[in-house]
């Protein structure tokens, strides 16, 4: 039997270890984010938001280059993805939470989790086979489909848990005054859960916006702004994560600097969305 003294020493030792490892883990992670932000902000200029990238020689001759086409492309592709993913995710979430006895639910839950656990790059391969191959061209639409595959399971899960937080008594109240089931869901449960639903969308959007792997062979990338708006949907489109990768592995110094700028823009975009999502849930608990 150990003495109390030994046990207390052990106790203090573990406290020290825990403190040490927490600092050890958090420091490099904070350093990464800090480094990207500091380094990126110093390379951002107004040209970054107003010019297109062009060929490498353009940057090496010192002419103004930027990533306006990339930023627009990101917004278009991500929005396309959200438009496609939202109904599917919402529908599945409603099915899981509002019809808990449905026979397909266990299967749906397993499939949804499986889909969520699949590496994003496989979703890119799927979108390649389903959209790029039949259409015969890389396109923003294909990129949107790939990102939709990333968003769907997240939205479904978030919708389910958001709707589950609404007590059954609310639904019973609705049914008791004679509302049909679909009105109960649409007019009482979903409005009551709207913060949770919006949070789910924001988190899914943020996750998908940071993914580069599924976009490499779906929206492919483009150094120029498409001539017409339809080029954003039916032609190859640049997106921030994929452009960041291309810039980082390119051999040009000027492009490396622009990569840092793209990194900070992407980081702020993704973390901003994510932060907004978390803030919303925070409020819900307060009220």
């Amino acid at each position, binding site marked *: 039997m150990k003495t109390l003294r030994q046990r*207390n020493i*052990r*106790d203090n030792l*573990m*406290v020290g*270890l825990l403190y040490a490892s*927490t600092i050890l*883990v*958090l420091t490099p*992670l904070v350093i*990464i984010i800090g480094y990207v932000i500091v380094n990126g902000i110093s390379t951002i200029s107004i040209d970054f938001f107003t010019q297109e990238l062009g060929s490498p020689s353009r940057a090496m001759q010192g002419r103004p280059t930027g990533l306006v086409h990339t930023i627009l492309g990101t917004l278009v592709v991500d929005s396309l993805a959200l438009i496609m993913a939202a109904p*599917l995710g*919402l*529908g*599945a979430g409603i*099915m899981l939470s509002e*019809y808990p006895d*449905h026979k*397909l639910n266990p299967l*749906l839950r397993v*499939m*949804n989790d*499986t*889909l969520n*656990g*699949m*590496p*994003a*790059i*496989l*979703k890119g*391969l*799927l979108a*390649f*086979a*389903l959209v790029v191959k039949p259409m015969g061209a890389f396109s923003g639409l294909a990129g949107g489909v790939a990102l939709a595959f990333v968003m769907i399971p997240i939205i479904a899960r978030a919708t389910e848990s958001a709707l589950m937080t609404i007590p059954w008594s609310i639904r*019973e109240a609705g049914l*008791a005054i*004679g509302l*049909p089931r*679909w009105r109960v*869901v649409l007019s009482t449960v979903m409005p009551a859960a709207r913060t949770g639903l919006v949070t789910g969308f924001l988190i899914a959007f*943020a*996750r998908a*916006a*940071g*993914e*580069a*792997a599924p976009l490499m*062979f779906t929206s492919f990338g483009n150094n120029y702004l498409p001539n017409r708006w339809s080029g954003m949907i039916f032609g190859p489109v640049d997106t921030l*994560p994929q452009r*960041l*990768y291309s810039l*980082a*592995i390119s051999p040009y110094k000027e492009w490396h600097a622009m990569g840092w700028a793209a*990194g900070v823009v*992407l*980081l702020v975009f*993704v973390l901003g969305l*994510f932060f907004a999502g978390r803030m919303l849930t925070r409020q819900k608990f307060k009220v």
Partner: protein
Amino acid sequence: MQHEQTGTIAEKPVSIIYRWLGDRIFLTLVVALGLSIILLAGAMAWVLTDESGMALKEFGVIGFLTGTTWDPGVQFRFGAFPFIAGTLITSVLALVLAFYPAIAVAIFIAEYAPRWLGHIIENLVHLIAAVPSVVIGIWGIFVFAPWMRDTFYFPIYEWAANHHPSLLPILGSPIGYGMATATIILALMIIPFTTALTRDAIRQVPKEQREAAWALGATKWEVIRMAVIPYSRGGIMAGAILSFGRAIGETMAVAMLIGNNNNLPFSVMGPAATMPSVIVNEFREAVGNLHLSSLMAIGLVLFVVSLIVNLVAAYVTRKLSITGGQSI
């Protein structure tokens, strides 16, 4: 029950379309949307199998899995073994590196940190988990890999060259981009994920469990050791397995840092490749149908591995979690 009674009292003529048909349509719609997710998961399996058919027929399933040559240029021979090995080695090592620190942070947040600090760290961990992989990758390429090369790889290589030349092939070329760098970055990337899942598991431990241990006169660490960790071990294990799944599928940061060498043998510091990294690197440039099909087949292997990992995690959560005296 009660609402049926009130239902009959409040009965009012309502259009049958509004009530009966509306419910039918809504249910059909919702089920159709749910079904499409099931179909989507099925489509992924089917598409990958279908697309990889050509490669699997050419080399045979076993031949493809164990083949060690990946030559898209001259011989047109494709074997997945180097990438399977690369993926498994980096992911297992990353998990080993990440496991204890991640759990330590979770225990610190849950048990030791003052409330405000725990809150801040927890939010920070979630925030870090949301940082895109490419952003970590660009830091890795321009800051981490050169730093590792100058501080560790070169001195180690020099020392080995002077004292134990036999170690050199094991260490590999110290260019900075290689297995060691990729593994460390991978570990850093899965730590927030593991921490968040472990934190969730610890949150499930009921207060009574801790109080019982306190009542026996346990010190704080003993409470954690005796009451908290055993109770949450199912969740912690499942979290570790899911993190492993994350590491397997992690693409961009690894592709940017591993150096992309498709040929065995891999070495400690030298360049290597993983399943996702080879897909991302070669898919855009693949011209031959056999090459494309082989990359799809690698995708299929990745799919199967991820599927197994996810199912095992689901099984572990169900089997290993102790629910104390409570049923459910």
